[in-house]
């Protein structure tokens, strides 16, 4: 139904969901809360605002000043709210925003750089974020870096955090190749000893898949094969000395009658060429004589 004619409901924004396998977190996507973005579509097109939050499951950002009118149920009301009908922050898909960088020149004049696309490379340890982060560059302009913004609040140790010195303490160093790094008993936990890929025996289905089926023969093929089978087997015998002499004489006679040196050179080259069929026959003869 056309949205224009429907009554206002408590509906939520329907953004397309990114499949879990291709989902990226905000660092992999190159965006972080506090970043500036340039809006390219919609009501606020052409404005630069800051990012509050990135939603990986929809590949969308929550930015400042972009809201939609929505009806909120009373259970979700906040303080000082006295109407169901409120401005509600709305998600913008990443395709509608572009990352922007702020630049201030010596005179204090502010200018923005909007990156059509960005590339992430050269990881470094960012102590503000307490993690390794890639540097962000404007695509095709490797001199223009857009640094990560300061995180909105400092990252502090939480309940499950490990103390920094404990993390950086080195307790493993390769000292010997004679001793296994993992105890034997633990190895079966790392590798599945019953993996189907480790089985040496193929199941019937797998064997059938690997081997092509035998094609049934047509009637003509069967007749041909029966004829071939009924024929006596071909035997290979070496030429007798008499025949060899005869052929040699004939060839000598022919070659001696040639005067053209080019023709002789041609025949010489021809005699050196290897004929696979000839070699095969010779091989057959040798095999037979054994």
């Amino acid at each position: 139904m056309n949205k224009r004619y429907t009554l206002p409901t408590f509906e939520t924004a329907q953004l397309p969901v990114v499949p879990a396998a291709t989902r990226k977190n905000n660092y992999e996507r190159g965006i972080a809360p506090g970043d500036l973005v340039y809006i390219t579509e919609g009501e606020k097109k052409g404005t630069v605002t800051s990012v509050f939050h990135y939603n990986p499951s929809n590949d969308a950002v929550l930015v400042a000043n972009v809201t939609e009118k929505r009806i909120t149920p009373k259970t979700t009301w906040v303080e000082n709210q006295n109407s169901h009908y409120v401005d509600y922050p709305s998600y913008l898909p990443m395709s509608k925003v572009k990352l922007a960088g702020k630049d201030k020149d010596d005179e204090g004049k502010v200018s923005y750089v909007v990156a059509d696309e960005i590339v992430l490379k050269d990881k470094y340890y960012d102590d503000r974020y307490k993690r390794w982060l890639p540097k962000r560059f404007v695509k095709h302009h490797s001199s223009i870096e857009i640094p990560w913004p300061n995180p909105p609040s400092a990252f502090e140790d939480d309940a499950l955090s490990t103390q920094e010195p404990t993390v950086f303490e080195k307790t493993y160093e390769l000292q010997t190749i004679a001793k296994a790094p993992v105890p034997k008993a633990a190895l079966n936990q790392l590798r599945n000893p019953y993996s189907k890929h480790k089985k040496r025996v193929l199941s019937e289905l797998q064997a059938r898949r690997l081997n092509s089926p035998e094609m049934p023969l047509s009637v003509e093929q069967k007749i041909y094969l029966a004829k071939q089978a009924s024929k006596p087997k071909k035997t290979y015998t070496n030429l007798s000395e008499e025949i060899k002499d005869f052929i040699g004489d004939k060839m000598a006679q022919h070659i001696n009658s040639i005067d053209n040196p080019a023709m002789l050179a041609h025949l010489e080259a021809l005699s050196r060429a290897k004929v696979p069929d000839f070699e095969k026959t010779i091989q057959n003869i040798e095999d037979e004589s054994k």
Partner: protein
Amino acid sequence: MSLRVSMRAFSLSSRVCARSGSKFSFGDLSKVKLRAPIIPTHKNFDVSPDHPLWAFFPEGNNTETALRSGDELDMNSREWTFAELRRKSFEDLHKLWYLTLKERNILAREVRLAESLRYSRTQQHDALDEKLVTVQKRIKQVLLERQVAHERVQTFTQQQQQYLTEFEERYLNASEHEIVSFNEKLVRLQYAFFGIEPQLQDYDLEDINIKFVEGLSFVANLKVKRYLKQNPAQEQEFELPLNGVVEELPFLLRNVTEAIEEVKALRQSGESVKLDKIDVFPFLRSALSNAIEQEELDQ
């Protein structure tokens, strides 16, 4: 399993009673005294503070709530990275694995409880669990990397042999002032290639294997060759090759001159025998345990 499935049926004993037809009566009801009803509450149960199931609660027996809300969870911490895990020993990784597992069990219990209460806001729990799963996967990956590297290097026998030959040459030709550093190098090499620990008390006697025997032979022959090169006069007196582990072991335990004397004494007394393969490990174990005891006595 849903909670409703586990709803209690009539107890078996009461049904058995009914079936057996035994006449059960309350007796004189006028004499039954009414007591204040016992309200069913968890306070009537006494749970030991060191009950193992407390491990399924975030704060152990001090836990206030059975189900934490999303904001009570630690959503700020990030996963361990590969680079960080690669610096950690097997023991550390093993500990970390079980800490992670324990935390996952706590989360799983909470999610299960939430399901039974029809409470659906457990996305945060799932998100945290995903991080923990990532840590576990990375731990496995790091351990496998090490194992694969170890297995591959076992096939590089030619390169290993080449290095050992080169080392032998350099060791034999080392000058007098170089030999101290070469001896230190040899101690590191015998651990690196053959797993022979530098300190006698660190030996794991159960772990003596073919590599150890190979290493022993390499080290002993190296030292003897060096000694005979330095003292050519001894070459007539002391015959090579060494006769198996019995003659090689002194070179690992003592300095060269003492070892040479010991081997000579062994040869004179006729105790120097070439052991059968099956006797090599037991001999080494007993000889080394004696040596370790002796060293402990000396200290």
